[in-house]
């Protein structure tokens, strides 16, 4: 059915767009904590949309349900990993970036 293929292409292209913006943010932001914002939020949403797109293309089989389980796991686990590493940065005294520092 052609409608499922078009819907899956829309979801995968949306996921690719968020991957691109997350990578540009990871390269251009001035500080460690701001880079964590980019990769923690952008990557999670991009993976979620891409996996839903692939699951729609596959249809309702055992493989499609497994792909949805991977998407649910990534939605729970990736923000937790980001939280853990930012807490490690604060606990060891990593200083924030202020505008008076100028460009890094």
């Amino acid at each position, binding site marked *: 059915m052609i409608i499922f293929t078009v819907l899956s292409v829309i979801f995968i292209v949306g996921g690719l767009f968020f991957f691109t913006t997350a990578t540009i943010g990871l390269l251009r932001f001035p500080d460690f904590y701001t880079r964590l914002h980019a990769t923690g939020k952008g990557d999670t949403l991009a993976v979620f949309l891409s996996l839903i797109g692939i699951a729609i293309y596959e249809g309702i089989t055992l493989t499609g349900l497994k792909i949805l389980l991977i998407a649910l*796991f990534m939605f*729970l*686990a990736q923000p*937790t990993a980001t*939280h*853990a590493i930012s*807490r490690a940065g604060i*606990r060891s005294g990593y200083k924030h970036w202020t505008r008076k520092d100028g460009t890094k």
Partner: protein
Amino acid sequence: MVFRKEDIIVSTIARILIPFIQLYALYVIMHGHYSPGGGFQGGVILGASMVLLLLTRGHDEAKYKIPENMVITLSSIGVLIYAGIGFLCILLLGNFLDYSKLAVLLHVDPAHARSLGILGVEIGVGFAVMAVMYSIFLDISTGGVLPEDEEPEEGTEA
């Protein structure tokens, strides 16, 4: 490693996810015939789930749930299952690990007995790999000395 006060977010998410990771590891062990997996890969995932329990809960609760004596015993039980199945095939007048001779014990035809024999060996390998991975991580993270055994030293350290 320094285990300070535990984190509540990571601890709650780990408590939710650890049973499902272990269930998936059992699936990987059982489906070694048809998809990538088998004994070693499933054992590694089981060991990793125990390492996650140790990381997010600290030494006291991990020692209460997974005692160190049980871990060392489990690794020996895994090797015993592997060698035991091989030796059982010798007792039934075959070569070492010749699973077709197990057909008389299980009342199935020899091809079926080969499949079940490989499954039993993979389970033994899974036990051994899981126990060794957790034991190695426990030794490295504490430096060989558990926190309750340390004597408070006075003066400078050596």
